[in-house]
């Protein structure tokens, strides 16, 4: 088979937002955080993502507001660059090439133009030793600058960004590693080292985990592995330092931060409690408990009104300084394993999988946003090391319409038997979420191996089948309760099935719900759910059945199964015989709910290949070798919101639904076609243009003429190239309607213009037909502006001269703010006014 070059595997959202400490802008309106190889800008009040600063080619490892300009932000990345952004507009200003992977970086206002970066000592990513290096950023007008002025500050430091901090006014820098705290004074140019004695009592260690310095006072606060916080003072003299110990946390301190005025110290850790210590009155503490997951970072806004905490479950909580949660930004939660498979909620089309402990998360794939978490276990989560035996959601299933959700939670206990419950949730229209309907304690005698709903929409009563290691499978049905004391209908067991006391592993309903296939080790049994008769048995030894799947639509007569002995079998249910089989190590078999297509992920030589095929056709529709390294065990077909109309044969299978999969490293990936990517790019550009809207008429006038000027000078000016010209008429009408009546000319003047504006010009129509071809477009725009120039000659001249003057001066020395203003003005359309002037 040919490799299809136009279908690519791409990362699809869901990256970590808790990787590094978030940054709050000076006005407390924005929150910036590193997310994969992007930097995301969130609004602190609405929790929405405003900009996505793209440009880095590797993991972003730090975000920092430029000390000399609070509207600009630095970001560093493992790709060896530091980039400067304007985060309010989402524009990349400069790229500084460092040349070494940057693990974290620091800056203070005291050292202007100097960045302190943490890089491996040897230029090798695997190296264990890290050093702190001061980089003087060169002043240059170029977009991309190579930084060359390096000077080492400290060697052998911890790569963790929390382990290093600047002291009061940037006079010294404190860095901790292992049991040593090192303070480097810039004036004296020499480091002091403080060491702690090793203390291994009760298995806890007193190694340093984080360091922070008081902003107004000579005081360093350090957090330790054993939950203690030490305040170091008087460290300018090596022998006479003092340290105070604060102890509240019972396990490692995750993060420490002083408020900007230094009145409070914030600390957080595994307990997921934010502790606020009063500086100098440490016995007084405030707590903000139950934040959901272990605190990994704490950040404070420069004006001290907002705190924010990053949590281990990929969440950022924004907290007002009166210790009240005001907003929660939640990313996709990715635990060590996805024990419930990935599912699609039929109602919201959201991806559903394990989230926080004991929760299911609903994650919108389209918007890359976590919609909500559904609390399945409904128990207080205990944050404690070594207490792993909590209830976990292990299985979940949706019925065809999304009305019912079934979940299985289990808890492994040391001494006694496994504890597990089956819960059934009904969708409540009023609250728009799932509400617990039935809880079945210990539905089976042993672990549940599979759970599936009958996937018919017309059947009145839905049916759930659960297979268990106790050798039985049970069918559950919704029944009206006979007794008077409980209200609604609830679920009860309808049938218990078994086959030669073998253990059922997989179960699957056919698309119309008339057949149930249950695999019992090597044997597949086919049952009729209506009468619970065993219809037939299919088997293809050797090898235990690993996956089982019915064909859909025109292929519904086929049943596909994979075995542990690397066999993919397809049975014809009409003849009850094997149709075909092939030898491949299928790790995952999936059926597209909207088409006949099936996807098989095969593991081969450490890589995973994808085959898409129809059960009825011998040739695969599509195959992609080595989509990622490692085994793919979780994947899902997600239906598209609107059908893609691709006619290329190779990408037709992606028309109705997209395929998403999780790699071994829990990255959410998907397949895209070229056409799709282009469309996405186009829409991105459109969005940028739409940002700029109404202005005063004078600005419009000026701006347009300046733009024309520039167009003439530089036909390939990026802004005009990106522009998609709107029909002039509609703009004129819009502006006409928006302008207050008392500033408009008389109606008799307006009338002809208005009528004219309704006519569709030929150039517009032509242009609309080719919106994607950018060069053509810009040319046309040029023509158009020329035409306009001819009509209004006298004014044009005047403004032209004005425009040139402006441009000249702008080119010579313009402040950043002015340049931005200029850009915005350029984008505006004032053509309605010129039309008005013509008439």
């Amino acid at each position: 088979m040919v490799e299809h070059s136009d279908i690519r595997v791409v990362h699809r959202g869901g990256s970590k937002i808790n990787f590094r400490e978030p940054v709050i802008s000076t006005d407390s309106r924005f929150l910036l955080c590193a997310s994969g190889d992007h930097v995301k800008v969130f609004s602190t009040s609405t929790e929405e993502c405003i900009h996505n600063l793209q440009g880095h080619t590797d993991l972003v490892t730090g975000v920092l507001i430029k000390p000399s300009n609070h509207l600009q932000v630095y970001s560093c990345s493992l790709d060896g660059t530091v980039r400067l952004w304007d985060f309010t507009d989402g524009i990349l200003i400069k790229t500084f090439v460092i040349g070494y992977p940057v693990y974290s970086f620091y800056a203070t206002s005291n050292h202007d133009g100097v960045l302190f970066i943490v890089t491996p000592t040897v230029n090798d990513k695997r190296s264990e030793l890290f050093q702190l290096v001061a980089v003087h950023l060169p002043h240059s007008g170029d977009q991309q600058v190579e930084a060359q002025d390096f000077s080492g500050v400290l060697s052998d430091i911890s790569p963790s960004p929390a382990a290093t901090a600047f002291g009061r006014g940037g006079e010294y820098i404190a860095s901790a590693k292992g049991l040593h705290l090192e303070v480097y004074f810039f004036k004296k140019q020499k480091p002091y080292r403080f060491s702690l004695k090793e203390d291994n009592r009760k298995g806890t260690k007193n190694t340093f985990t984080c360091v922070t310095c008081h902003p107004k006072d000579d005081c360093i606060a350090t957090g330790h592995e054993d939950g203690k916080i030490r305040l170091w003072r008087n460290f300018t003299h090596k022998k006479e330092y003092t340290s105070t110990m604060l102890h509240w946390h019972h396990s490692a301190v995750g993060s420490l931060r002083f408020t900007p005025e230094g009145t409070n110290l914030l600390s957080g850790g595994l307990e997921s409690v934010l502790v606020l210590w009063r500086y100098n009155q440490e016995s007084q503490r405030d707590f903000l408990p139950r934040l959901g997951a272990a605190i990994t970072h704490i950040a404070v806004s420069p004006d001290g009104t907002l705190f924010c905490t990053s949590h281990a479950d990929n969440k950022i909580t924004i907290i007002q300084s009166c210790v009240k949660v005001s907003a929660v930004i939640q990313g996709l939660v990715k635990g060590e394993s996805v024990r419930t498979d990935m599912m699609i909620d039929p109602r919201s089309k959201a991806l559903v999988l394990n989230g926080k402990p004991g929760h299911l998360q609903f994650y919108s794939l389209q918007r890359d946003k976590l919609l909500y978490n559904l609390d399945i276990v409904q128990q207080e989560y205990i944050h404690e090391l070594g207490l792993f035996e909590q209830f976990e959601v292990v299985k979940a299933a949706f019925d065809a319409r999304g009305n019912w959700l079934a979940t299985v939670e289990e808890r492994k206990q040391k001494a006694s038997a496994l504890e597990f419950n089956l819960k059934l949730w009904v969708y409540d229209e009023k609250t728009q979420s799932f509400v617990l309907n039935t809880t079945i304690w210990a539905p089976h005698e042993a672990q549940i191996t599979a759970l599936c709903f009958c996937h018919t929409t017309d059947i009145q009563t839905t049916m759930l089948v659960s297979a268990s290691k106790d050798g039985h499978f049970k069918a559950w049905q919704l029944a009206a309760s006979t007794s008077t004391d409980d209200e609604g209908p609830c679920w009860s067991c309808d049938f218990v099935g078994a086959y030669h006391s073998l253990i059922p592993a997989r179960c699957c309903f056919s698309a119309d719900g008339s057949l149930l296939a249950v695999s019992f080790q090597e044997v597949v049994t086919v049952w009729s759910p209506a009468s619970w008769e065993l219809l037939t048995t299919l088997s293809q030894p050797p090898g235990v059945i690993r996956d089982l799947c019915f064909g859909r639509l025109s292929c519904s007569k086929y049943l596909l199964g994979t075995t542990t002995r690397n066999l993919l079998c397809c049975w014809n249910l009409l003849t009850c015989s094997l149709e075909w089989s092939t030898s491949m190590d299928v790790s995952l078999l999936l059926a597209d709910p909207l088409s006949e297509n099936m996807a098989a992920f095969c593991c081969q030589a450490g890589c995973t290949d994808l085959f898409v095929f129809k059960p009825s056709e011998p040739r695969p529709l599509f195959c992609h070798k080595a989509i990622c390294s490692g085994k793919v065990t979780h994947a899902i077909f997600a239906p598209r919101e609107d059908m893609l109309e691709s006619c290329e044969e190779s990408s037709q299978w992606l028309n109705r639904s997209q395929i998403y999969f999780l790699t071994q490293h829990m990255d959410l990936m998907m397949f895209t076609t070229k056409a799709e990517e282009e469309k996405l790019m186009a829409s991105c550009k459109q969005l940028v243009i739409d940002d700029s809207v109404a202005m005063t008429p004078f600005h419009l006038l000026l701006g347009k003429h300046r733009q024309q000027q520039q167009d003439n000078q530089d036909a390939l000016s990026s802004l005009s190239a990106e522009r998609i010209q709107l029909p002039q008429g509609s703009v004129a009408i819009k502006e006409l309607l928006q302008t207050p009546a008392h500033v408009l000319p008389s109606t008799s003047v307006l009338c002809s213009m208005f009528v004219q504006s309704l006519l569709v010009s030929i150039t517009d129509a032509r242009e609309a037909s080719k919106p994607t071809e950018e060069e053509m477009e810009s040319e046309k725009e040029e023509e158009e502006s020329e035409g306009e120039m001819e009509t209004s000659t006298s004014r044009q001249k005047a403004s032209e001269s004005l425009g040139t003057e402006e441009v000249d001066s702008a080119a010579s020395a313009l402040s950043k703010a002015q340049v931005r203003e200029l850009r915005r003005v350029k984008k505006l359309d004032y053509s309605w006014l010129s039309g008005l002037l013509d008439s």
Partner: protein
Amino acid sequence: MASFKPTKIQVYPKLGEKVTQDTLYWKNYKAPVQIKEFGAVTNINFSPVAPHNYAVTAFTRIHIYGPFSQEPVKTFTRFKDTAYCGRFRSDGQLLVAGCEDSVVRLFDVSGKVALRTFKGHTKAVHVTDFTSDRYQILTGSDDYTCRLWDIPNATELTSYQEHTDYIRCGITSKLNRDLFITGSYDHTLKLFDARVDKSVMTMDHNQPVESLLLYPSEGLLVSAGGRYVKVWDLLKGGQPLVSLKNHHKTVTCLCLSGNGERLLSGSLDRHVKVYNTTNYKVVHNFDYAASILSLALAPDDESIVVGMTNSVLSIKHRRSSNTEEAAQQRRRPAYRVFVKGKNYAPKQDDYLVSKPVKQHLAKYDQQLKKFKVSKALDTAMESWTRFRKPEIPVAVIKELDRRGTLKNALAGRDEQSLSQLLNFLIGNLVDPRFAPVLVIATEIILDIYQSVIGQSAVVDRQLVRLQELLEKEIDYQQELLEVLGMLDTLFASSLPRKEVSCSGISRANGLVQGGAAASGPQLEAS
């Protein structure tokens, strides 16, 4: 910030009978009034008109009782031998009864002497009834014949001799004056039309027919005979609809509830069963002291009257619901109290200050929230919850175990609180619902306190009791396993030997499973 999630108290399904609408309805009768008759009560018939007196046929007498009287308002004693089947006419004026001496007598309800006597049968007459035009009488006799008589001139109109055994039940149509149905010990039911000279429909019940009942619409016929109650669809030519086998002795009488939605059957097995007439499932069951021969419901189910072989007539009157409701209403606070201030709609420029909703937590949850584990356990162990709601202490123990702090909570107790704990364990350890949790707690207690055994007489005594309890439980479990083994062999031998059909086996597994679940605690205890 998420709020504290309270400990979940597991809800256990209530054992025993489920409370349904039907059980509530049929249980709402007062304690029965028992009247001793002279002999077995063979028939009870309610008068169709207002005071709804009922005629009770027992031995050689027919008593007529008023709705609330315990003494007969009227007695007919002019029978030479056992009387049978005293029935009212649809206007409640006349009463007809058969007799062992083959004479059928017609009485005026207010009179004493028979108005008419119908002679012609050669053997005992067990069946008498009025036709719907009120001028004729149907009789059925042990001489295998059934006859129609004219009341005004006491003559026999027609005679049918189609049955080949005793006719012991019969009923006339309330809608058509010519139709009647008889049931006989020859296992058949026959539908006769007086306008033709032979039966028009025959149904085979397969058992001697004891009782017949027509639905008010007269489309369905119910017959009782042997252990079976069968329902026939007359409109489909006598097609059998359902066959019910819920009694384990002969069903002797049938009756329909006032609204026609429930069917009652009385049997020699001393039970009265109530069926739902839409799905024919038993919804309720009454127990009586002796075999039931006759059964009748007053209009609107105001009372249930049952006659038994030990010549006792049992009358249950419906509880009047008015008084209780009034009492309940007095207790409730006024509606005003609840809506006070809640229905106030804010005006347009009002500033709404929302009060934070305070989460109510049980006392043990409040202590758990503060990580006071021992105190939480003590609170849950308070005597009221310990005795009335053992699931609460069990749930708290389970929660502590989940938090990994059960050992801390159980340790460091003095004699009194330890004995309290042990008492609770003795009371609930062998309960299969609580055993998995309590076994863990017991093991931890034994581990913690094994060093102080012998220091306190109270605790020692309780530990000995606990040991005895466990030994007894182990014996029980062993016996249960033996029974299980016996059942398994029984099932294995009774099942048809078929290779493919596994559904039968799997049904049986349901039973096996119950037994296996019960054996769980035994393993842990040992």
